[in-house]
């Protein structure tokens, strides 16, 4: 009873706080501060058509590195948290009702999904999408594979290698930015190229590809762990 009262009190107070935020909110009519700088100079400085990508990969690349790290951490933690013992590891999941249709369509669709994912992150600097979206798409492909056949052993080593190498490359590219350009994660150590081309915007396509691979591998890793945990007794 007291608890419900307190919850009600809390929620009412939140409503009050948010109401104040809401009424004091005046919709923006023009870009200010750093956003104005990005809009004016972003294309020139970074060379990416997609300014969100410019911000994510370069201007706030350090955040993105942290973000990738979070996924990596989660995968690692789940790795030792949901670790199976040897006996459970060998178990086979009895699955019923996976339709032939799903299996076949998975086999057909997965390569296309993978390709689409790669496309999304390679074009991240030009069109909507990028490493995270591409990575998520790849991971969805993996998810489809697993769903079609729960006992399918995803090549664990491959995921691990992709995750590791792309992570290291991300850091190395960042360091190259210090060595060859203005600072950590500076994309300008590769020529910015022609604005709007696939191979332009300096190292952005490279970085975003590694991010894409890494995110894809990490999410797949997490899914794989969850899938395996189904065997735990």
């Amino acid at each position: 009873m007291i608890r419900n009262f307190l919850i009600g009190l809390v929620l009412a107070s939140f409503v009050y706080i948010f109401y104040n935020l809401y009424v004091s909110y005046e919709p923006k009519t023009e870009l200010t501060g750093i956003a104005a700088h990005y809009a004016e100079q972003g294309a020139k400085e970074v060379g990416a058509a997609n300014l969100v990508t410019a911000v994510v990969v370069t201007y706030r690349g350090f955040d993105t590195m942290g973000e990738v790290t979070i996924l990596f951490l989660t995968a690692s933690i789940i790795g030792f948290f949901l670790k199976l013992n040897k006996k459970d590891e060998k178990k086979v999941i009895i699955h019923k009702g996976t339709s032939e249709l799903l299996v076949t369509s998975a086999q057909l669709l997965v390569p296309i999904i993978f390709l689409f994912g790669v496309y999304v992150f390679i074009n991240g600097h030009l069109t909507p999408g990028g490493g995270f979206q591409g990575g998520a798409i790849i991971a969805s492909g993996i998810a489809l594979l697993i769903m079609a056949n729960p006992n399918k052993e995803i090549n664990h080593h491959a995921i691990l290698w992709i995750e590791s190498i792309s992570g290291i490359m991300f850091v190395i590219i960042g360091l190259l930015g210090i060595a060859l350009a203005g600072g950590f994660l500076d994309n300008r150590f590769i020529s910015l190229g022609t604005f709007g081309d696939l191979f332009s915007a300096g190292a952005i396509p490279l970085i975003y590809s590694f991010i894409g691979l890494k995110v894809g591998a990490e999410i797949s890793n997490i899914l794989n762990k969850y899938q395996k945990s189904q065997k735990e007794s």
Partner: protein
Amino acid sequence: MEYLNLGKISLLIGFILIIIGFWGILSQKNIIKIIVSFTILDTGINILIVSLGYIKGRTAPIIDASVPQLADHNVLNSIVDPVPQALVLTAIVIGFGVTALLLAYAMKLFKAKRTLEINQFNDLKW
């Protein structure tokens, strides 16, 4: 018309989702429900962030054919704020990481006591 701004509407939706999220977090006993409430809270915050970057009548912050010439400073006047969008990308991924971890915890907690009632897990107290 002035009142019906897309940014304002989204902001409102964001706030409402946040409050619903808090409501769920504080009132639901089931751990899975609490985690669901967290995802709603996260979604609310994300909507909030994006709507704060929205500027009426402008396009996505991608410079292509729809945006006039690059050299032209009109970019400044034709796109929405890219920064909140970049932040939301990060926030979504973080939210996913946290949710995955919370669910792993939920599984282990259930395995430990065969219940998902949060008030059963009070071994540590006082």
